[in-house]
């Protein structure tokens, strides 16, 4: 097991090249699923969230976007989800073109449940919007709730659940469409560490179970090193990928992975890359 890191500056070498070089290292990495080429995002208030971002996500990846607040990692996720248009650059899907997205599941930082609806109605939502009847959807809803370990909470209201359980419902809702790509925007940032560790373990198992690709936004070096097959380290002002780190260890991993060299190497490299970026002039 080894970790490889390719710290680079945007001007020296595009991150996409690094990703393709790296592909041999990452476990389960397959054909490109989505490729971002020179993607920039400027908001109406003039803030540049992303500047010429290059990123290749491969089928089967567990890719973490790691960086400090304001580095545009959430924006990158929203662009990939199609929630916002990019100012410039291309987002190309393996299925062809910019609009032919595969089915996507999205998990926000907050559980974002509808407080007036029961757990099962919340999980039903994506299928409901896709035109399913509740009866047809019920087996899928039950499956998704079992996957996240809440099979007995179908009728519960969100307010009756703890923070960790709400997040599980939110993940079940994202999984109910059996997405091929799961986008997660700092989903566990607001949870206590014990719950977070538990959900990390469950998430890795889920990913293997579902066979989906995951893009996971986080600001935790340890979380990204524990979960990912690949880490894209991002820097602020402008938001861009400054290093890609492949972690060559099969998923799901277990607690003892935190003491292995692959994990420790990845932590060290991610940390170095982030510190390197902080030394450059464009970080405040």
């Amino acid at each position, binding site marked *: 097991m080894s970790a490889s890191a390719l710290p680079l500056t945007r001007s020296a070498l595009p991150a996409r090249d690094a990703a393709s070089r790296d592909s041999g290292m990452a476990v389960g990495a397959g054909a490109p699923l989505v490729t971002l080429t020179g993607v920039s995002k400027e908001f109406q208030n003039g803030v540049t969230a992303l500047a010429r971002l290059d990123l290749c996500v491969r089928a089967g990846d567990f890719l973490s976007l790691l960086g400090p607040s304001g580095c545009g990692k959430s924006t990158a996720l*929203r662009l990939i*989800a*199609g*929630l916002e248009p990019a100012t410039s650059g291309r987002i190309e899907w393996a299925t062809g073109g910019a609009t032919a997205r595969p089915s*996507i599941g*999205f998990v*926000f930082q*907050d559980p*974002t449940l*509808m*407080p*007036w*609806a029961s757990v099962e109605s919340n999980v039903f*939502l*994506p299928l*409901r*919007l*896709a035109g399913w009847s509740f009866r047809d959807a019920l087996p899928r809803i039950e*499956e998704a709730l*079992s*996957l*996240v*370990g*809440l099979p007995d909470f179908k009728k519960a*209201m*969100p*307010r*009756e*659940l*703890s923070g*960790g*359980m709400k997040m599980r419902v939110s993940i079940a809702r994202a999984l109910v*469409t059996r997405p091929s790509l799961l986008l997660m925007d700092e989903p566990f940032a607001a949870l*206590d560490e*014990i*719950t977070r560790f*538990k959900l990390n373990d*469950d998430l890795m*198992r*889920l990913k293997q*179970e579902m066979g989906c690709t995951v893009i996971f936004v986080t600001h935790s070096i340890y979380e990204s090193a524990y979960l990912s097959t690949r880490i894209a380290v991002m820097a602020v002002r402008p938001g861009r990928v400054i290093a890609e780190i492949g972690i060559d260890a099969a998923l799901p991993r277990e607690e003892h992975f935190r003491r292995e060299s692959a994990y420790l190497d990845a932590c060290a490299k991610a940390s170095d890359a982030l510190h390197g970026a902080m030394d450059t002039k464009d970080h405040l």
Partner: protein
Amino acid sequence: MSLELPHITAPDDEAETAGNSPGGRRRGDIARARLVGILLPIVVFSFAIGLWEFIVRVNGIEPFILPAPSVVIATLIKDWSTLSLSLLVTLRTMAIALLLATFGGVIIAVIFAQSRLIERSLYPFAVILQVTPIVAIAPLLLVYLNSGTAILVCAFIVAFFPILSNTTLGLASTDPNLRNLFKLYGAGRWRELVLLRAPSALPYFLGGLRIAGGLALIGAVVAEIAAGSAGHGSGLAYRIVESGYRLNIPRMFAALLLISLTGILVYALLALVSHLLLRRWHESALDRGG
């Protein structure tokens, strides 16, 4: 395809969901506190009424100056045939006005939610109607409309604004991430409105409705008084004006009592509707236990 996750629910998860079961003694204390909470206002209120009766009797105050509560009740029973008809007239005005205000307010709020531009252009009208005292508008309306319609329009105008402004606020206060989710799954405007915005706005709307219920009554009464001498109105407020002219003070009090009771009843009814609709999920209506 299920994971083997034997103890997937974290210990803290269980602790938080398992309701705390207080001991019998604590439960008894809570029941007693609840009983006192209900009884105390009743006792205080009865005492105040008793005091009123006592003062009137001891001082021998004439009924045309201040009738005792017993006289008011007696008048209410004696004049019930007249007063009940007037009550029905006022109730009918209020109910129709509230119904129209509810439909109108919600429909216009939904239109506002579709476009900021429409909201900006039409909102001033709503504000003008709201800030101009209804008692000042009523005489004008009585010139243009027959008194029945004018009274209805007055009640409608005052009840309309809280529903419109609250519902507009509610429709605009949807969780942006939930809106993102609807967008991600390709929901159209209509489905977003029905499945997301409407339930989000419900607590706001119900808050507005509760205010509007009281205001519809006030609007109807004010307009009836304004129409009083001019029209052939027969609502409760008209009875008050009429009794005032005839110095029939006990009947004035009886009509006033009916108006008060109507207001209380309407408020209680709307509060109940609000509680029933929100009790499962909204913070404002959750059982606080004790």
